């Protein structure tokens, strides 16, 4: 890709994608709590109300179910709403509207309507925000047919995937790791899109594959570096879109290396790592040298104390440790 790039943060990348898309398409509007005047609690929407006005960058009351409900109705009638739900934990308040309305309307009506909307929300632990402000509940959304689920891990992907999500005619959940808003990297300028449903190989190795999502990319890359020093050559691959999943890319890598570890920041049990592991073992069974391993967040509500919280989040140490076990 020969697009001009600049270095910027994920926060900036998202802001840029929103701005460019809103300029491109008048039907797009944003709604959420404190996204306008205050620019969002994570400052992701800063400056947008100034450019697009309070109608299109709309501060709402604190009413998550209502916000999503209005977005569904607006999307059905030709608008293209982008909703911000501040913390992923709060999407539980809008579950009915997401699951029973947004996700199902197209199918239930046999295609008579579409619901082109995006819900952006902040996932991830690490901010010492405790159990009600730290969850990564993307497995929930992935389980629901009719939703697409996107987890960017780099500024470029944050921009490119969000643009694709906005242009998609389905409800798309975009989960942004709150610890990564300041993550820097190249951001392609202009109309840069990343298609939904395409994994990205960040590092190519021959001995093992780490499939990792969102912020788990970074400890995975770090573990891969360390293992490289030990002579273990690791592929690191990020599905980027979790639903629909780029199964082919993941299985191909499993076939190549024969060893797979899946890393994700949702609770480990009944989470995203389970689905990926189950698919990989099924499709690559005869090529595997070891069982597919998984590493998710600890199966506990996220504790506040930093000394405890850090233990719940998958680390480079753990990742490297598991790969070493698998190499035995």
């Amino acid at each position: 890709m020969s697009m001009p790039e600049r270095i910027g943060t994920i926060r900036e990348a998202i802001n840029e994608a929103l701005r460019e898309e809103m300029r491109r398409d008048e039907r797009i509007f944003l709604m959420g709590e404190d996204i306008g005047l205050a620019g969002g609690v994570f400052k992701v929407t800063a400056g947008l109300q100034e450019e697009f006005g309070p109608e299109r960058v709309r501060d709402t009351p604190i009413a998550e179910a209502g916000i999503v409900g209005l977005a569904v109705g607006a999307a059905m009638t030709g608008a293209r709403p982008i909703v911000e739900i501040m913390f992923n934990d709060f999407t539980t308040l809008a579950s009915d509207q997401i699951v029973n309305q947004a996700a199902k309307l197209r199918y239930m009506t046999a295609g008579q309507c579409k619901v082109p909307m995006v819900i952006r929300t902040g996932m991830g632990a690490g901010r010492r925000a405790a159990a009600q402000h730290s969850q990564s509940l993307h497995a929930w959304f992935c389980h629901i047919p009719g939703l697409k689920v996107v987890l960017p891990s780099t500024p470029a992907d944050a921009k490119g995937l969000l643009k694709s999500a906005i242009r998609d005619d389905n409800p798309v959940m975009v989960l942004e790791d709150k610890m990564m808003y300041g993550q820097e990297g190249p951001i392609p300028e202009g109309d840069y899109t990343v298609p939904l449903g395409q994994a990205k190989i960040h590092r190519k190795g021959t001995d093992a594959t780490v499939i990792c999502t969102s912020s788990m990319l970074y400890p995975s890359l770090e573990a891969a570096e360390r293992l490289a020093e030990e002579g273990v050559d690791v592929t690191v691959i990020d599905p980027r879109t979790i639903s629909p999943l780029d199964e082919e890319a993941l299985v191909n890598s499993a076939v190549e290396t024969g060893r797979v570890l899946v890393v994700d920041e949702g609770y480990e049990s009944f989470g995203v790592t389970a689905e990926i592991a189950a698919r990989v073992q099924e499709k690559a069974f005869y090529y595997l040298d070891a069982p597919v391993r998984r590493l998710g967040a600890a199966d506990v509500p996220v504790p506040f104390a930093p000394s405890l919280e850090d233990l719940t989040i998958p680390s480079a140490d753990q990742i490297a440790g598991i790969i070493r076990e698998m190499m035995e």
Partner: protein
Amino acid sequence: MATNTQESSRQVDRRSLPLDLLLDMYRRMVTIRRFEETVYDVYSRGIMPGLAHLYTGMEAVAVGVCMTLRKQDNITSTHRGHGHLLAKGGDPRRMFAELLGKATGYNRGKGGSMHIVDMSLGILGANGIVGGGLGIATGAALSAKLMNEDRISVAFFGDGALNEGLFYEAANMASLWKLPVVYVMENNHYGEYTTTAKSTAGTGPARAEAMAIPATTVDGNDVLAVYEAVTRATGRARAGEGPSFVECVTYRWRGHHMGDQGDTYGYRTQEEIESWKKKCPILRLRTYLIGEGLTGEDTLRQIDSEAQQRIDEAVEYAKTSPYPDPSEVFEHVYA
């Protein structure tokens, strides 16, 4: 949908309503009645799958409301949705086909009674979630305002739905943002088997007024009273003055759904049902039309039999339609 003439004035004098409007109201009410009673028959004979919540006895609400609307106006309906759809102009053939799970149904059999949509008529859907349409109707009003489109929304919902939190979240935004939406509460005195008195502290109109939404209560069995009240409400919406709330007091003659017809479950008496049957909204309009000398028995009987014929055709159409192809099960998950 030819009743656009009232848009300028919000005060309706029932004596000044044109006869063709009145006859259209009558026709729609009878069509709903015939549709629902035919569903009752067909269901009772065991050839209809799933759930069906009948609107019999409540016809004046849907018709009184929808006659104030234009084609491009949106409605959201409920689990008890057949009446709303027919009042807004829905095609009984495609409705009945949907109830039988046929490929010619509105939703190609995928939705059934609780999920019928007709986007060309602004019908954003019946809904299986009690109160589930309240956000959608309000959102449709928001998009109209944002995109500067000349349409308004009506959300139908029941006395039971009033207690779901979503109403307050959505209506508060509608009030704050002066969205063109009318909340029509169908108070039929019960949510399933629970009386309003046992489910609701205070009243719907008071709750709306507490969010600065003008509210009124009307006799929901008097189609003209509904029409009058809703005309004021839609007038406000069209003029950019924001949401309104209209409570229509009515009664459902049949059980909560087809599964419990005939069974009062101890929650209401046969006498109560009979007393409401005496207040039949269709009979009432009929009596008015004849009593005021506006039309004769013959005309009305003619409408009755045309309606019956239309429904009979719909049933025939539905019965002879094919089931969806098995491959359709995987279609339409995504756009």
